[in-house]
């Protein structure tokens, strides 16, 4: 440990201004602060500070995403196995998923962090750790067979247009991970929707006529559609999908979004540590239920409202993306409104818009856009209330 510290101290002068690699200062600092909590001391203001920092909070979010990620890897294999009738065991399924998902992570982190490093260097800032979470989320919200070059472009778009031009982590308007997904969704719709993209290996089978590493064809009766493609009791029944299947997550879908159980584990971590707002999560669920039951009673769907919570990306979006503290509403009342509208809009899009089977992404992005407006009205009404008190007094 001390040896490493000594080595870093030795090479550090090279990376400071005027040194041999002075142009890499931010990059060097990024790695140094990754390894060591810096030796900086308080100057003005309070003399002591809490031990928590952004790195710690973000690593907790990453940790909370791990169950969804692990389940997603297994489910990728499971869906592949089911589609091609391979009769795999647990580890074979997991291994297949691992092999499919790791490249997504590599692309996500290499492209995203690369851009972060370069832009921090250009601006002469410290590297911000915000992308640790975005990079963790992005592979979980795309179909497993998304071409890597598309993912790379989407990540670049999200980081540059979604974040860096606003000034980096903390300044962005939209959730960068969702922006990456939206970019893919609108630029390459054929790779982001339909029945063939959600199961690993199927797209390749369609193109080349063979499955990954085995000669099997697709099993009879394979549909590959996500439950959202036929969101009726009958449709789900004929696909053999029960409520428990949706809750556990053994259905096709984006890598990490399917398992409500895994997401709930993550939610418990986020709520217990206080990293994410329970108000947003709770009110988003309320909004989803409200519109879900409204649709049920109006006859827009024959699924009771609570089904909306376990289908598609609702749970994942509610827990991990609507609660992004930067892009969500910042005021406490605002969070109730924001969360409710996220849930309500997502289900509204599902039920009444034939064009888009899933509405979570659009709902969150739309509410991201309006979050500052909500805050504005919450704050001005608070200011008005205070002003009124003066007049009475």
């Amino acid at each position, binding site marked *: 440990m001390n040896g*490493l510290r000594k080595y870093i101290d030795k090479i550090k002068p090279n990376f400071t201004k005027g040194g041999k690699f002075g142009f890499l200062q931010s990059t060097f600092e990024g790695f140094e602060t990754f390894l*060591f909590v810096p030796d900086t001391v308080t100057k003005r203001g309070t003399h002591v500070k809490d*031990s928590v920092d952004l790195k710690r909070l973000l690593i907790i979010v990453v940790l909370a995403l791990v169950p969804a990620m692990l389940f997603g890897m297994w489910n990728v294999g499971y869906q592949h196995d089911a589609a091609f009738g391979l009769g795999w065991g647990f580890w074979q399924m997991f291994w297949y998923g691992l092999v499919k998902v790791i490249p997504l992570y590599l692309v996500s982190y290499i492209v995203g962090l690369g851009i972060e490093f370069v832009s921090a260097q250009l601006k002469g800032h410290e590297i911000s750790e915000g992308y640790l979470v975005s990079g963790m989320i992005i592979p979980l919200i795309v179909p497993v067979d998304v071409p890597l070059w598309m993912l790379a472009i989407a990540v670049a778009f999200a980081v540059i247009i979604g974040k860096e031009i606003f000034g980096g982590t903390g300044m962005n308007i939209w959730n960068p991970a969702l922006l990456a997904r939206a970019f893919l969704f609108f630029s390459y719709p054929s790779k982001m929707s339909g029945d063939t993209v959600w199961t690993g290996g199927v797209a390749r089978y369609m193109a080349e006529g063979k499955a990954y590493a085995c000669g099997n064809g697709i099993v009879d009766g394979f549909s590959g559609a996500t439950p959202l493609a036929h969101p009726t009791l009958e449709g789900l029944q004929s696909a053999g999908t029960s409520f428990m299947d949706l809750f556990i997550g053994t259905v096709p879908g984006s890598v990490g979004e399917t398992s409500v159980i895994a997401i709930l584990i993550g939610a418990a971590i986020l709520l217990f540590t206080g990293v994410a707002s329970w108000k947003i999560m709770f009110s988003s669920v309320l909004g989803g239920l409200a519109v879900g039951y409204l649709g049920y009673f109006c006859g827009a769907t024959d699924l009771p409202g609570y089904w909306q919570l376990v289908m598609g990306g609702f749970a994942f979006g509610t827990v991990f993306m609507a609660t992004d503290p930067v892009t969500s509403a910042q005021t406490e009342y605002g969070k109730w409104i924001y969360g409710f509208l996220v849930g309500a809009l997502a289900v509204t899009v599902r039920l009444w818009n034939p064009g888009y089977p899933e509405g979570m992404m659009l709902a969150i992005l739309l509410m991201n856009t309006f979050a500052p407006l909500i805050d504005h009205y919450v704050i001005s009404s608070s200011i008005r209330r205070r002003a009124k008190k003066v007049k009475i007094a």
Partner: protein
Amino acid sequence: MSNNIQLKQGLNIPISGGAVQKTKKDVVSTVIALKPTDFRGLVPKLLVKEGDEVLCGTPVLADKASPEILFTSPVSGTVETVVRGEKRKLLEVRIKPDAEQKHLDFGAKKVNDLKDADIRAILLKSGLWPSFIQRPYGILANPQARPKAIFVSAFSTAPLAANMEYVLRNETDNIQTGINAIAKLTDGGVHLSLCSDNFNGTPFHKLENVIFHTFSGKHPAGNVGIQIHNIDPIRKGETVWTISLMMLAAIGKLLNTGKLDLSRKVAVTGPKAIDPCYVNTVPGMAIADIAEFYDNSANDIRFISGDVLTGKNVGAEGFLGFYDNQVTLIKEGNEFEMFGWAKPFRTHLFSASRAYFSWLTPKKLYDMDTNTHGGERAFVMNDVYRKVLPMHIFPVHLMKACIAGDIDKMEQLGIYEVLEEDIALCEYVCPSKIEWMSILSSGIDLMLKEMA
């Protein structure tokens, strides 16, 4: 006791090194200093020169803006040096005390016979006028103004703060005299806030001529700014004054005896303090005069006049501030910590959040140091701050208004009501390591400039 105000938000920082209730010694000062920098916005005018003899109560400085506000010597002695900084800014007037203390006699008074103007005159002349802090902005009180009310906090919740009952245990009569005097300066009365947990245990609940309030809650419940906000918030155009019990006692002593007596009990505290307890001294005491409380051979101690949240880093050569009755000694944390943020446990560190596990050991005290535990970032989290700020304001938005220099927004978001000490905890818990107090200071400075 009827209208207890319970504050749910707040945080008591579990730092080790609280002072035990004993007085170790009377500090024999080799030199003391008067520091114009203790007073916000003061442009001082020097009234003495090096080598002058001064008595206890002799004017040393005056306020250039209102020359009737005098700053007097707390001891009798000889002006040793006048320390100036950049652009010849006056930093300290150092006075070497005489062995035998001589006081300027201001004449003992009966408060009942005094009128508003008489009280103002004697406070201005004796150098006790700066005891008042005027809000908004926390500046020296305007001698012509008649404040809406005067607020006093009779307890402190700051980390390791001196115990008020102990340091003022024989001063109740003087405090009463002081209250009777300052009550004539306002129509709104003197509001005294007590801690509800200790209501019957404190001698201060027997004070008269005051309007009592009781508070319960964690720090900053003892901050007078928080109390004002929850009793009667400051509106635009209003002025209120605040004063500490310690300065009230000094005013009482002045009126009762005719002599300026700023002597006070000072708590020497902090993880680096050896045998933390109290000493008798005067404001401006040199830190070097309490050398037996610390061992700075490793040169790793930070000397703070005040508490760890709002105190000033004065250094080993520094002096106690005018308003302070606490010295805190903590370690400079200029060390790297390998994988600090990634370690599951960091049992030697405290966190108010549940991101670490210090919530499992709620009674533990920590040897805190000055490390920032992370680099500065933009605002990311938004709900951690209101948990430690018992005020109905939007702290992050106020900060952003200060950064943007938007005066209208600052006004609407409540800049009249807050001082640095009130939001110090926000800075403490800030995961983005933003310097809240400096940002607020710059906002207040802008307000002072624009509103002048």
